């Protein structure tokens, strides 16, 4: 049977908008998959990735239509199937692993029953065989204590466990094709590494083919053999993942690769200009032309074909570009720009913000605390404990850690929204009041905060003008006209035009909204900006642009950043110094270059090993279990329960010493530095990244 598993040919789908205009979602998509193949599908949000994934289930959104082309699964057109055969196909032969398992699983049903449902429906299993198969599936995805786990409800499981249950459920029908729609987005790096590892294992042990949809090139590189790049509903490049990484031929692929921050390379990634066309925005020629540096007149008139680079190649590498030869011949993208100018680093550092031995807790005080003491219950461990750090003027200090590590709590304490239980915060040499209302207006002005999600941090009912006006009105004695002028200037500094003044947040893209949020923070002319995961809700291309904006503003204004992130690659790109946080306790702190080289704190090592560096074939070195800890341990090292380098009871009982590895580089660990240094390999090295030359050298001929 030489027939391909999946053959999509010239598929164009769309829906009829009001009036008679047809809005195309997928355009002329041709893509095929062999049995057991793993194909990655990458692209910015809004490029039709999920829509394509859903068409493989024969599903179109309400109102959607196939306008041209076919999608054949084992030779049968998916859109010709009668409803009962389609129902048989879904879940049985093609299964989906959704992005958020917590919303895809039914909250009122035990997870075991939900898997059993699939087995009964599609395979007709019942009784003891059914139960046995459920447990077998749960074991296959490496869940612990499967009997007990099968009886739990979704809310009783952690995010990583839920995702495993979703994988088990998808595998239940023994499908020929798995569609994975951003299966690890929103998970912590260590959890993500475990899920990716599981997927790779499934790929190796079963005959299931996988379509892995993600915006995260690093995650795709871990799992997939082949990569397809989608832009504006079109496949723009398709080939073996090694080839695409080493020698991308489409400018869009280059842009995506170049804008992803790397663990192994310091400096800012290169931002890509523009944004994908909105649905219904039709133009003649190549859809990417407006954003493309190589575009000429041909590109704006004639739509290129998806053609092979080399007709005789063993693994076809298809490109949708008129000028791919010129693109390939040009200098490689992905050059990093040096972040800091020399002048800035030479300046004598003046401490701006000092946190000393700060404890923060969400535990209730007053009556609740008295009651607790009367009952003889122990004091709950503090969320953030004995946290000390100094941020100098003009410096970027990054706070890194998984969710629940207390990063945002610290930012809230500095912003005066969450008073610490103990410790001191000094700002500009003076004690900082713990409540924002009791700070003098000038101090309020000097500390600003930017949030993760601009959808939530910008008032949806305000225009950009009103949003930028708020800090100006509050902190400066300016009349309406000069405030308006200032708002326009701020927008231009954030690389938006004053046209945006009249818009509502809902009328802007995610990147534009975050720029407005940045402009609002800078309207106050602050000395310190607290950036709380400011790029995590954005596409990589947009993320690079926002990072560039932040770095540029810092160079101009000399502000200091407290940059909170879970993404070690982003931190590497922008930070001067890094503090690694686990359960509200600092594990390691030091200059950025020292953090990314041994010796590491075992937790830092775990994070680095788990982080998906865009590097084909790279596998995570799984150093720590992905357990979610609700509370930090009462004594000893905060990382004791998960530490891969635990040395014994000392870790459980004694607070680890602060070991100085270098100037300003402190590791809090019981393991001697020498031992750490010897046993820890350099986890990340630029030498591992494939380039054209290395690829040529590695090939047999």
């Amino acid at each position, binding site marked *: 049977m030489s027939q391909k598993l999946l053959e999509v040919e010239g598929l164009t789908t769309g829906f009829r908008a009001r009036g008679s205009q047809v809005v195309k979602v997928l355009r002329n998509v041709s893509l095929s998959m062999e049995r057991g193949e793993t194909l990655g599908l990458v692209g910015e949000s809004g490029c039709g990735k999920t829509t394509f994934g859903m068409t493989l289930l024969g599903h179109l959104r309400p109102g959607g239509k196939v306008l041209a082309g076919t999608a054949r699964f084992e030779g049968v057109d998916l859109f010709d199937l009668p409803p009962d055969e389609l129902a048989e196909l879904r879940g049985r032969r093609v299964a989906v692993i959704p992005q958020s398992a917590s919303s895809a699983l039914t909250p009122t049903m035990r997870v075991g029953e939900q898997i059993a449902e699939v087995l009964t429906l599609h395979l007709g299993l019942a009784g003891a065989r059914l139960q046995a198969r459920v447990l077998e599936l749960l074991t296959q995805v490496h869940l612990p204590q499967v009997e007990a786990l099968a009886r739990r409800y979704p809310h009783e499981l952690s995010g990583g466990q839920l995702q495993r249950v979703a994988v088990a459920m998808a595998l239940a029908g023994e499908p020929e094709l798995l569609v994975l729609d951003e299966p690890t987005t929103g998970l912590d790096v260590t959890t993500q590494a475990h899920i990716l590892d599981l997927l790779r294992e499934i790929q190796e042990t079963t005959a299931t083919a996988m379509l892995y949809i993600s915006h995260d090139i690093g995650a795709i590189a871990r799992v997939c053999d082949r990569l397809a790049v989608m832009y504006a509903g079109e496949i723009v490049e398709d080939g073996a993942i090694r080839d695409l990484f080493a020698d991308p031929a489409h400018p869009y692929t280059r842009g995506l690769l170049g804008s992803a921050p790397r663990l192994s390379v310091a400096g800012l990634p290169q931002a890509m200009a523009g944004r994908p066309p909105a649905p219904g925005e039709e133009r003649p020629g190549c859809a990417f032309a407006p954003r493309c540096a190589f575009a000429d007149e041909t590109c704006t008139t004639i739509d290129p074909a998806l053609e092979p680079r080399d007709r005789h190649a063993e693994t076809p590498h298809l490109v949708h570009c008129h000028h791919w030869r010129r693109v390939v011949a040009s200098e490689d993208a992905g050059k990093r720009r040096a972040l800091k100018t020399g002048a800035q680093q030479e300046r004598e550092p003046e401490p701006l913000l000092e946190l000393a031995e700060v404890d923060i807790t969400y535990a209730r005080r007053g009556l609740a605390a008295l009651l607790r003491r009367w009952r003889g219950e122990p004091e709950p461990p503090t969320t953030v404990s004995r946290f000390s750090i100094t941020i100098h003027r003009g410096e970027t200090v990054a706070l890194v850690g998984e969710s629940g590590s207390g990063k945002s709590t610290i930012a809230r304490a500095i912003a005066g929204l969450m008073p610490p239980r103990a410790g001191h915060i000094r700002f500009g040499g003076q004690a900082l009041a713990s409540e924002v209302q009791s700070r003098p207006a000038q101090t309020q002005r000097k500390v600003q905060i930017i949030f993760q999600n601009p959808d939530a941090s910008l008032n*949806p009912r*305000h225009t950009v003008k009103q949003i930028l006006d708020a800090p100006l009105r509050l902190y400066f004695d300016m009349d309406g006209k000069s405030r308006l002028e200032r708002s326009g200037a701020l927008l231009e500094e954030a690389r938006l035009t004053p046209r945006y003044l009249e818009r509502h947040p809902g009328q802007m893209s995610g990147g534009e909204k975050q720029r407005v949020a940045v402009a609002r923070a800078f309207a106050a002319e602050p000395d310190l900006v607290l950036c709380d995961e400011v790029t995590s809700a954005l596409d990589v291309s947009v993320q690079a642009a926002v990072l560039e904006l932040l770095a540029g503003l810092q160079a101009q204004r000399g502000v200091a950043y407290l940059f909170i992130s879970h993404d070690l690659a982003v931190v590497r790109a922008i930070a001067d110094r890094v503090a690694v946080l686990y359960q509200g306790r600092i594990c390691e702190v030091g200059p950025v270059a020292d953090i990314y080289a041994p010796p590491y704190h075992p937790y830092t090592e775990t994070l680095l090993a788990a982080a998906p560096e865009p590097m084909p074939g790279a596998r995570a070195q799984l150093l720590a279990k992905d357990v979610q800890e609700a509370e930090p341990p009462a004594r000893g090292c905060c990382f004791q329960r998960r530490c891969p380098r635990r040395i014994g009871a000392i870790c459980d009982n004694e607070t680890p010493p602060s070991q100085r590895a270098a100037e300003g580089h402190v590791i809090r660990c019981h393991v001697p530095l020498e031992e750490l240094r010897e046993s820890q390999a350099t986890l990340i090295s630029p030498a591992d990244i494939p380039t054209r030359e290395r690829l040529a050298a590695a090939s047999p001929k």
Partner: protein
Amino acid sequence: MRSLLAAPMRLAQFLRRFGYIWRSLRRSRQGTIGLAIVIVHLFIAVASPYIVPYAHHDIDGKNRLAAPSVEHPFGTDSFGRDLFTRVLLGGRAAIGVALLAAAIAVLWGGLLGILLAFIGGRVDEVVMRLVDALLAIPGLLVVLLIVVALGTGFSVLILTLGYAYGVSTIRVARGAALGFVASDFITAARARGERKTNIVLRELIPNLLDVLLVEYVMRASWALTAISSLSYLGFGIAPPTPDWGRMVFENQVMLAISPWGTLFPVFALASLIIGINLAGDALSKAIGLDRTREAPT
């Protein structure tokens, strides 16, 4: 100069926002029908004194309990009063009372609810339990009690209904506001050092205006039903002012002989309430969609 310009600019902005609501309201057929009915009723309420053929107390002694004719399009009642005149005039008082009562209810109940959500903590807890207690007593019973005690005047009716519906508005407004008080833009305003009154007025309330608008429309419809019920029972709008509820009471004994005196007021009242509800449903649907996502103008 600035302050002179600020007010009309804000008004323009306000109107533009409601322009979006208007358009999406018009897009739904039910909404358009409801709106048309309401507009016809409001027009009649305003214009009826100038268009009715008789005075509401004019008696045509020769034509008692008459069926509809050219002279009396809706017929006459047992006194020989023209029903067409009385039906056209019969909504004025009730509609006026309902609109004012609903305005009072949404104003105080809405504001209190928003404040409670914003303040939170013990104050919220205590006041909400009090609200629960008040809500446990059937609304019409409370209104009847007050009206019986204080007598039936327009101001008593308006204030009583305004109070009764305000209590339940507290709940709705608080619930809607709770969704916003924890959001990042409020946190951002707090972190900026914005004053509390400013946070409530500038950041919170603009997000709740549409909820309050729907609330207003629905409360007005209920208030109308309540007033008509009161009038029917004799505690609402007092004669000689014509009123639909009272007319139903006056003419129901003659239902078998001459149904017109009952049917026309009932039809008038029912059509208005159906109209308001259709428009109200479409309005809340229109608001459910985020208008600010419409293309920039």
